[in-house]
């Protein structure tokens, strides 16, 4: 049950700014990747910004977030340190993992971003575990588990869902359905017509399927789910349909290699989450063109600052190699 509230102007501006920040950073990474200084795999979130922005805007500072290989947007929208992220991609000691993780391992405990790792599905039970801890300690925290529709094929997803529902844990499952697991379409992985959120509903929790490119709708649903979880109402599952624009891993477009059509891509480009909200901001006079320009300038500056910081940061020294295998 969701009570529709009018989003505040602040919220709409925030959603836009967060999406813009993700977009700008990701596009910048794509542009710089060819320099071969970011020497790690990158799974870009371009096109999928709506989910991260909407969900992040629904969270309280104390909440936890876990993610997978495609985590940039989740980290950025959650307010993860941008310098530390870029430095991590550049393999520098100032990176969030001191260079040990690379793009696929983002972390920022200061904003409750507990971690992202690239083994598909593995952070789903881990997220449920942080929710269990919150419950055991009587805290009011909520955990977000971000994952792709591919991850719902892993057994561990099933195990984690069952337990979250069994114990009514404060966790919200955010499934970004972008139709592909690498280059494998849904048709070779899941029965046709069987919706991801419907299978999830079988576990006995509230589910919703919606447009992941509508950040406002995502925020509304995510907020309802988070509030419910915080109030002890247990987990919710949101399937958010979206589309990755660039190749599965790397900086390029790959609509030509044969696993999907340029037409499909163009169709999704038309559903770009950013212009959509931009129009609304302008139409409803929540922001002026000048405001938007200012945001663009701000975000570009943040991005350049982070890149510059990363590029001038030192690499970890040899002493770091053996450090920290054990706590």
């Amino acid at each position, binding site marked *: 049950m969701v009570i529709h509230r009018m989003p505040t102007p602040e919220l709409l501006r925030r959603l836009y700014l967060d999406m813009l920040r993700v977009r700008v950073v990701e596009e910048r990474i794509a542009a710089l990747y060819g320099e071969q200084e970011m020497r790690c795999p990158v799974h870009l979130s371009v096109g999928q910004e709506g989910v991260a922005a909407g969900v992040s805007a629904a969270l309280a500072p104390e909440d*936890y977030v*876990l993610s997978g290989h495609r985590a940039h947007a989740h980290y950025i929208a959650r307010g993860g340190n941008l310098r530390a992220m870029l430095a991590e991609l550049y393999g520098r000691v100032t*990176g*969030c*993992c*001191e260079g*040990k*993780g690379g793009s696929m*391992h983002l*972390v*920022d*405990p200061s904003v409750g971003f*507990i*971690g992202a*790792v690239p*083994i598909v599905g*593995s952070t*789903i*039970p*881990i*997220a*449920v*575990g*942080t*929710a*269990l*801890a*919150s419950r*055991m*300690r009587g805290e009011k925290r909520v955990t977000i588990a971000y994952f792709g529709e591919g991850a719902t094929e892993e*057994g*561990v997803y*099933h*195990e*984690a869902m*069952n*337990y979250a529902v*069994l114990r009514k844990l404060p966790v919200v499952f955010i499934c970004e359905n972008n139709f592909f697991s690498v280059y494998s379409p849904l048709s070779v992985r899941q029965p046709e017509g069987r919706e991801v959120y419907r299978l999830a509903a079988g576990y006995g929790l509230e589910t919703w399927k919606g447009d992941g490119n509508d950040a406002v709708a995502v925020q509304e649903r995510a907020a309802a789910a988070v509030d419910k979880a915080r109030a002890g109402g247990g987990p919710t599952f949101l399937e958010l349909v979206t589309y990755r624009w660039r190749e599965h891993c790397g900086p390029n477009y790959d609509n030509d290699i044969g696993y999907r059509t340029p037409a499909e891509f163009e169709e999704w480009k038309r559903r770009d989450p950013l212009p959509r909200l931009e129009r609304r901001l302008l139409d409803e006079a929540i922001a002026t063109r000048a405001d938007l320009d200012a945001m663009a300038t701000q975000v570009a500056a943040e991005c350049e600052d982070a890149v510059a910081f990363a590029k001038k940061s030192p690499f970890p020294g040899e002493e770091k190699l053996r450090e*920290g*295998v*054990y*706590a």
Partner: protein
Amino acid sequence: MSRTLKYVEAIREALDVSMAKDPTVYLMGLGVPDPKGIFGSTLGLADKYGPERVMDMPTAENGMTGIAVGSALVGMRPVMCHQRVDFALLAMEQIVNQAAKWHYMFAGKGRCPMVIRLIIGRGWGQGPQHSQSLQAWFAHVPGLKVVMPATPYDAKGLMVSAIEDDNPVIYLEHRWLHNTFGPVPEDIYRVPLGKARVVRPGKDITFAVVSHMLVEALQAADCLAQAGIDAEVVDIRSLRPIDEDTILGSVRKTGHLIVGDTGWKTGGFAGEIVALAAEQCFDRLKSPPQRLALADVPTPSTPALAKLCYPRAIDMVLAAGAALGKKDLVLPPEPSTPLDVPDSRFTGPF
């Protein structure tokens, strides 16, 4: 004050004192609060600490291990239990990719203080899928600590240390040790992770052993003593990190090494000890080091074949004799109980 306790009672005491002093410690595992209480090792704890801290779970090893990992990352100290190592094969991803690496790969921004109790089955026809002894796997993984307590004293002391440690600790219990007795202090105490123990000092030959092989090694040492051979028995206890000083110190002293392992020989943990000795004590070795380990087959169920899989005291005596070129040996008596049970009180089925 020290009393004589069973190994499982020592574990239970360690869990009890740890839970009493630290509210973040909790237990989880299929059957942990059930009437059998993991072979007795968790009995009574659910009553004392309640179902929120002594938890049963769905039959879902990988997911539940991940859930324990998640809770640990934000400050809890789970003690997870899988009733057989074999079941934990389902949980390798969470143990090896996640628990073991989180601290390092996030440069210290996450830590995973948890204990994973894994029970090694043996005897009474446990068969190929209920008696694997996979310590070699865990000991290969940076980020894991691995212990195999062989006595009630160590069972308690290593469990307390494992729970207090800020890393994932694999705690391997041999089913045949569960009902062995030994002195256990009442108070809380710690046996440090990473330290071997010279259980029986000697000067002629080194037995470096893990887990239940300690029982065999001590019996073998007694027999050897009767033949005038003074064997030193080193209980490795901690497989990772390993106490090279103690183990190799003994090898340097005696010049002869026999490793006793409960796992398969080929590619097993015994090979690591032999390799360390060969690399680091090359000039002091007077005979080829030998491995006595589990037969390289899926352990069969029938007692007729299972008994052939496990190295025993007699094998250790013979190996020592071969190393030292001694022929007139005193062999241990044939055991009075069948070879597929730890003692005559054991009547199956698990």
